[in-house]
């Protein structure tokens, strides 16, 4: 996909905005907005760092410490489907519709595996608050050491949720022209593209927070640094982790070819979901054993 790179996406500001004659105008304009809005509000529940102590007040580097943070994120992610579905449907183009149906069924299928993988984490930490989960990973108790299978499932599902290679079937140009955004041009296409990249960033942040200790860095407490420096360093570490995952996304993109659609569905329903359930059962068993039955 040539126009997929952020460089060219910037050109979308200067391109002609074209609406097909038989499109449903209202939904056609609404869909990119939904996609962008949903992608952006996910970040509200992610803890970007510890607390900053400035001028006698504590500032938590998190927009909203929801006690149901994970549910909030999975709810918002599940709404993200509407942008794609409405965009594809309102275009009144059979390729766009096919792309939209592919994209949304892919996203729904992989949401299940992702949700069950997260449940294992929730069982371990006993909290749905993302900040609490990150704080419990302080030191070097990162969840990746306890949940390697869960992380594998999560990252695979994250690739599918973001429609990235090898799961970018919704926009596979050999079969579908351009996928659900075939009819889109200019900034509306830009919104779809941007939302894809924002989703990538958010899912990298989620992976870093859930499995790689978020803003925690091992042994940093022993340096005896002041609180504010620690917080800023923690945020820097979180962003370093996020950039690593984005690099990983790009890396995979240039390495692995695209799946076939039936292989994609097979992977989602018959491999990842049972694996996630087994992982959840194993985690539950381990917790029971640890607590002495």
């Amino acid at each position, binding site marked *: 996909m040539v126009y997929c790179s952020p460089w060219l996406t910037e050109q979308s500001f200067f391109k002609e905005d074209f609406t097909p004659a038989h499109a449903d105008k209202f939904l056609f304009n609404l869909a990119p907005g939904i996609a962008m809005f949903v992608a952006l509000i996910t970040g509200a529940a992610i803890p970007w760092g510890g607390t900053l102590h400035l001028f006698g007040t504590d500032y938590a580097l998190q927009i909203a410490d929801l006690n149901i943070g994970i549910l909030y994120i*999975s709810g918002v992610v599940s709404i993200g489907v509407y942008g794609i*579905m409405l965009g594809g449907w309102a275009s009144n183009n059979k390729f766009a519709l096919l792309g939209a*149906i592919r994209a*949304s069924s892919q996203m729904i299928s992989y949401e299940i595996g992702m949700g069950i993988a997260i449940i294992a984490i929730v069982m371990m930490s006993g909290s749905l608050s993302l900040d609490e989960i990150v704080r419990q990973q302080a030191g070097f108790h990162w969840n990746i050491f306890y949940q390697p299978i869960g992380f594998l499932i999560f990252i695979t599902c994250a690739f599918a949720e973001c429609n990235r290679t090898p799961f970018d079937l919704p926009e596979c140009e050999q079969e579908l022209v351009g996928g659900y955004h075939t009819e889109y041009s200019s900034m509306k296409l830009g919104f779809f593209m941007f939302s894809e990249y924002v989703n990538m960033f958010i899912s990298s942040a989620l992976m870093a927070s859930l499995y790689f200790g978020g803003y925690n860095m091992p042994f940093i407490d022993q340096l005896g640094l002041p609180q504010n420096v620690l917080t800023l360093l923690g945020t820097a570490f979180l962003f370093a982790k996020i950039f690593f995952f984005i690099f990983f996304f790009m890396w995979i993109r240039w390495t692995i070819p695209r799946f076939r659609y039936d292989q994609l569905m097979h992977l989602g329903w018959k491999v990842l979901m049972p694996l996630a359930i087994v992982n959840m059962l194993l985690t539950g068993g381990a917790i029971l054993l640890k607590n002495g039955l």
Partner: protein
Amino acid sequence: MEILFYLLAIVAIASALGVVLSKNPVYSVLSLICTFFAIAAQYILLNAQFLAAVHIIVYAGAIMVLFLFVIMLLNLNILVETQRFTTARLTAAFTGGLLCLVLIAALRSAGDIKAANPANAKIGLIENLGMTLFNQYLLPFEVSSLLFLAAMVGAVVLAKKEIA
């Protein structure tokens, strides 16, 4: 708080009317999603945050996507709904309005409802709900999972193309 409640109530009622009155099923779905968001916001006002999140995930994230899928796959927006006679529609609207009136009048005449327990804002938190669900209502929970399984199998069997 009060203003928020009335605002959300107006949004909920207006979009519920949109579900009934819009010609295109896709717009009905969108109006219904709008209603669900208004209701979820009401849940948050009632301190039932967990329920609000589950409401969004289940209704907006799963059920309405299913509706949208069926509408798109069957391409139902092209079909024109044969209208009933105007009298029949009017009668329906009149009956509905009358039902609303009767419900409200009956509930009004019920008088003041006394709260059984003192107010507690922690009721909607996930800890309390989990304790109630897995202590008092464990059997219904297990039975409902069976219901889900049956529904899933039934849906697959029904929607599958028969192999000739």
